[in-house]
């Protein structure tokens, strides 16, 4: 089954993390991608910060879509990137997500979302 791993963090909490700690985690992330390379599909990405986000939202009362500055949600969490993995089941996905190095930092979460399988549609 294919899953998207969404990496989220809390920018307000990130500020308190010392620079060298951040560098360590970054280093560990390279190792993590190497370790799990076999189940990674192409198409994952690390995203620029939420301050660079632009959202196009549906207009009110059926009006034209509106372009606004900022991410789509005003949640404290920021989506920092995502990967697509192909593993047998949810437990395998959880096992991989659990090793995500940034989870040693406060406010970090990995959301696991199964991808809709359209292979049976045709």
């Amino acid at each position, binding site marked *: 089954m294919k*899953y998207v791993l969404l990496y989220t963090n809390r920018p307000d909490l990130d500020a308190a993390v010392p620079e060298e700690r951040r560098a360590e985690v970054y280093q560990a992330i390279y190792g993590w991608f190497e370790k799990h390379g076999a189940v990674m599909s192409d198409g994952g990405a690390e995203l620029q910060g939420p301050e660079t986000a632009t959202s196009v939202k549906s207009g009110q009362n059926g009006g034209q879509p509106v372009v606004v500055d900022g991410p789509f949600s005003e949640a404290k969490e920021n989506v920092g990137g995502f990967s697509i993995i192909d593993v*047998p*089941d*949810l*437990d395998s*996905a*959880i096992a991989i997500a659990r090793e995500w190095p940034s989870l040693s930092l406060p406010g970090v979460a990995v959301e696991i979302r*199964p991808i809709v399988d359209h292979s*049976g549609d045709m």
Partner: protein
Amino acid sequence: MKTEDAALARIVRREAGLIVAQLQRRLGNFDVAEEAVQEAIIIALRTWRRDGVPANPGAWLSLAARRRAIDLLRKRSRELPLADEWEPDPAVAISPLGRTGDERLPMLFGCCHPALGVEARLALTLRAVVGMTTQQIASAFLVPETTMAQRLVRAKRKITAAGIPFTIPEAADLAPRLDDVLTVVYLSYNAGYLEPSESGRELSDDAIWLAELVTRALPEQAETWGLLALLSFLNSRTAARFDDHGRLVLLEDQDRTGWDEVAISRADGYLTTAAALRRPGRFQLQAAIAGCHASAASWADTDWLQILTLYDLLLRYDSSPVIKLNHAIALSHLRGPAAALAEVDQVADRLSGYHLLHATRAQLLSDLGDHAGARAANQRALALTHNPAEQQLLRSRLALLDLELASSAAELTS
């Protein structure tokens, strides 16, 4: 549920989970397997009530479930024209049977998966593994049947969509996942044991049956024995827990000659087996605390120091506010109501919606002579519990407090 129905429920319980597991392995489709068995159970209960139980109820149920499964698959393949009706559903991973040999166990771990909400885990376990009907589960948890049906549909949909596997976790994953399973069993027991009714009793029996099933399958896990011991200790007091009018009798006031000695010695044995495995845990410690009460000849003989020591240990494994509340209650018997109230107030915020927090505060305030405060706390407790037996007890406490308040008012004016 009539006694006759209770006997039918026991037969269903013995067979239903096994048939779901077998059908699921055969079809690779949990949703259809579970639905088919559920429908077969409803047909069976109706037919058996009328015609009596057949000679081989397991085979009867199994055949009825297979027929229902074929019907369901036909119906679905009309909706999804290209699906082959016996093709395994790849979305649900099927595990090899594993070392335990009981096919229900991988299913139990799937139903109690942490990716599902706790309420969904409970409902799904009671339906798929125990074979309770949606209607029975709904009435046990005091929710409308449609709400419960929705909850079950959502949970089953998530199992398929998210690829929740039916496997017994291995190595380091087993202990935390087993804890999730045991928690569901414990919550099932809790949902039943304060109900004086037959259906409450049934739910408690189902929980003990589940605990036995897990223990048989995973005898090297100390906590399974711990939970079995805990439930056996709690169950040994069943006959003394309610008076002739169905009123709740607190431990303090129970007639200890009514306790089931056989169940107590069985529980002692389970706890000894658990201890020999040398892997302490929260269920073993709770069982040990229940065991302290079981071995006290009277309420006055209760060894509160031992109980408080066990709660101190328990807090290392489970620092939830409910355990802290119980710690405070044990403390009140050693160091008095003021010390206990200080501890209770530390968890008051987090337990503000829990009736026993307020009931405990009421008792402590009353011991300290604050009858007006005790009255207010009891009223909060009363507003928060739906259990008729507990409501009745709280009302009688309120009536006593009113007497106290009236007599102290009389003292002031005289």
